[in-house]
């Protein structure tokens, strides 16, 4: 923030120096904020989840035709309507669908899609256009501008699943300035590390040292706060699946129910790059996702926190319509994504993709991926500033008042 401000200042002053006598007005002051009590739980399906075997267009003959070995037989599909059904392993998501708090956004993507894992997730994380690189993550851009940071903020985000592996890579949509992001595998590790950070004070006027000490004090405070929250969290309802995602969701549920002020939880489940033997591999992962989300919903409903939680999935790309020669699918483009929470208006959103009118063998998207972010930022958090380089992206209108 600080850095951006003075960069802007100097930009203007050098302008002023080159064009003396011309006045350059700064941005008009504008107060924007978010509802800090509402959490987004963002789940990255890492590797590029195959949308067609997640939300299956079972009634379209083109589906089975394109995938002799990989297609899910129409009889197995958990039918949601006359066209679409869930992968048979996703039964744990049916209660949310039936109760009307699960939305499925059709064919999410963008123009000129990129099929590289790295570049693809970069575009998704920053909310940029395909031929543009934005420095910060979309959520970081929103949160670093949000005013009125509450005193009891535990963290701007808690990132589960990148601990000790990579620093910036793990931040994803939260990569940016001056945010309190906690990367951890579980609360115990974080509490231990925060306590190992010795308390240090100084009357210094050195701004760099002040900053280091301030962040250290934040860490000390977050460590203690986390310990208190975990201690008061009740036993959870809901049967969370075994595995890392289940553990992460359990931690998330505990903290949300205990009232932790954390606008975003970012979770990752890896392994969706199913070039071969897709059915077996993807089904296993989707079981975890579905059972995890089912349990999270149950736990949060019992804990009275489902109404202040919005869960969303994303992935760097979908996969090709036709299967490859290894009973798998290769990198593709658009895919459906889930939005669920106590305030979500359930049902399908947007037009389904055509399986026959393809672009170079790939689905053409019908929903802009950034509309998911507009939904989270604008509709859910009440953030009023526009934060995207692509003009005119609209929220999906699927959050109840």
């Amino acid at each position, binding site marked *: 923030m600080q850095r951006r401000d003075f960069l802007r200042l100097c930009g203007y002053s050098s302008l002023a120096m080159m064009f003396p006598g011309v006045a350059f007005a700064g941005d008009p002051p504008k107060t924007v904020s978010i509802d800090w009590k509402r959490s987004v739980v963002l789940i990255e399906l890492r590797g590029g989840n195959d949308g067609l075997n997640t939300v299956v267009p079972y009634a379209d003959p083109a589906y089975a035709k394109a995938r002799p070995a990989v297609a899910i037989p129409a009889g197995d599909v958990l039918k949601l309507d006359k066209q679409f059904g869930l992968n048979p392993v996703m039964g744990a998501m049916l209660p949310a669908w039936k109760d009307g708090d699960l939305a499925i956004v059709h064919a999410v993507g963008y123009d000129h899609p990129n099929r590289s894992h790295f570049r693809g997730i970069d575009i998704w994380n920053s909310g940029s256009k395909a031929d543009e690189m934005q420095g910060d993550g979309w959520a970081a851009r929103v949160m670093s501008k949000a005013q009125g940071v509450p005193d009891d903020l535990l963290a701007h985000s808690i990132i589960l699943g990148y601990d000790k592996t*990579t620093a910036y890579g793990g931040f994803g949509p939260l990569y940016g300035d001056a945010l309190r992001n906690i990367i951890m595998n579980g609360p115990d590790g974080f509490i231990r590390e925060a306590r190992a950070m010795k308390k240090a004070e*100084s009357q210094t006027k050195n701004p*760099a040292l002040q900053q280091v000490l301030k962040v250290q004090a934040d860490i000390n405070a977050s460590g203690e706060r986390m310990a208190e929250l975990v201690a008061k969290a009740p036993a959870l309802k809901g049967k969370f699946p075994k595995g890392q995602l289940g553990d992460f969701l359990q931690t998330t549920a505990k903290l949300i129910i205990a009232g932790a002020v954390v606008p975003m939880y970012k979770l990752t489940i890896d392994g969706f790059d199913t070039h071969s033997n897709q059915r077996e591999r993807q089904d296993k992962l989707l079981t975890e996702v579905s059972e995890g989300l089912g349990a999270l919903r149950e736990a949060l409903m019992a804990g009275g926190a489902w109404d202040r939680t919005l869960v969303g999935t994303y992935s760097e790309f979908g996969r090709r319509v036709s299967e490859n020669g290894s009973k798998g699918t290769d990198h593709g483009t658009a895919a459906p994504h889930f939005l669920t929470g106590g305030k979500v208006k359930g049902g399908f959103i947007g037009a389904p993709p055509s399986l026959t009118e393809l672009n170079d063998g790939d689905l053409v998207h019908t929903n802009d991926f950034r509309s998911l972010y507009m939904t989270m930022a604008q509709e859910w958090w009440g953030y009023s500033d526009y934060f995207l380089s692509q003009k005119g992206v609209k929220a999906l209108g699927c959050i109840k008042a």
Partner: protein
Amino acid sequence: MLTRIALALAVLAPLSSLQALDQGEARHLLTRTGFGPTPDEIAELLPLTREQAVDAILAKNRTTNRLAPPEWCNVPLADNAAQRQAEEKSWKGLSEQERQTKSNERESRDRKRGVELKAWWYREMAATDSPLTERMVLFWHNHFTSSLTTVYDPRLMWEQDQLFRSQALGNFATLLTAIPYDPAMFIYLDSNSNINYRPNENFAREVMELFTVGEGFYTEADIKEAARSLSGYKIDEATGRPALSERFHDTEWKTVLGHKGLLDADQIMKILMEREERVAIHICEKLWQEFVSETIDAKDVYKIAAVFYKSKYDVKKAVRAVLLHPKFWDADARGTLIRSPVEMLVGTIRQLDLPVDDYAKVVEMGRALGEDILDPPNVRGWKGGSAWISTHSLLARREIFSAIAGGSLGNPNGKHRKADADTPAAGGEMAGEAMAPAAGAKDPKDKSAKDTAKDKKSDDKKADAKSEASSDKPAAGPHPDRGQWIPDARKQGTEGVQLAVHLLLPIDPVTPMDKDADLDRALKQLLTDPAYNLK
């Protein structure tokens, strides 16, 4: 202008600028232009005035690397491109599964080589006699960003390193002119998919916004027209570099920043360089933040920018002007910048003369600390400065530097410095395999060092098992006794501890030193003191 600035400096500068440096000033200059000063580096500067000291540091500049790179770096670009193409061609007849296997194999080979290259660079930084050169290579790497993750082929990142190295303190115009022909950049910013009937604006946008004039000094129309001008470059088989291919080039008239013509890459770079005032301000703002302060005073920067563009973009002149600026020498300025992870890691290795057995570990540490060299987070590079400090990074810094203090990279004891890391590459001809740090290959451990080590680590075993027989290498480097101060200080009790404090920290430690602490305990405390993050 130059003389006017020189005069202004002479008038403004306190008398001390004409006197020999004191210890604190020498330390400040070295830490801001390098990694972490060693006692011998400080001693070298002590008899000199500010100007002499700055010139001495600039005079050490290198344009080539000192240590031999991994062997595969020596394959000519064109051969490398041909090899990769041949590989891909040979996959054509294979089944999908076999093709996938082949491509996975190549990816894992590239990944392994990527780590080798990163490890080599850390080793070079630790061994160099010109830390400023390395800082400038890092500076250009962070300015003209490309990343291994996107580029895939490490050979191309090596080529880019060589470009940055050759112009580290050289000429910005030369650097900028070469950038459209840099094969790594070509891939990183999608120039390979910029063709006449479907222009890709990525490179055109970044070359204006980030590399030259900066945001606000061009229009969207300029970008569109520049992208069309830059279309149709393809890798030329004869050189392995991008060259104009008429078939894919947009041959219509374009207008960029008011210049109309049948423009191509060379002309776009020329048009941008003609915006000399703006380009110079942009670069000098970054140099100011790199070396002096995060807070920019437009007047200060403008003076330096004038030196820069009047010298036709001589980087050395700009850096010299930055380093001789009175604000650089302000006593209150000491310790007001945040050190980057690389500066801390390499600084610690140099100052404590750590016998690093495997630089891949250092690569991993840098990555965990948020600075995975050759893999910047995005095209803007690392934000640097105060952005290095976050909840996550401070926890990571505490953990990693406690581990280093506990011996995770070897014990601080100069006597047992490993021999071969300091062996220079002979006269530009890089030595062969024995010197090339192949991935996984560990350097020999000094037995006696190990036996006396208090904090033996289990990975020593691994290192021994894989060690190569190269202990016959001569021990003579530029600083064979870089770590001698440690055993010396260890004998001196409280005074030795004070010496360590002044060497390792730019300001007083936040946590007061225990009066009875021995040197080894003091070092552990200093490496995790909040002030260790500062320069």
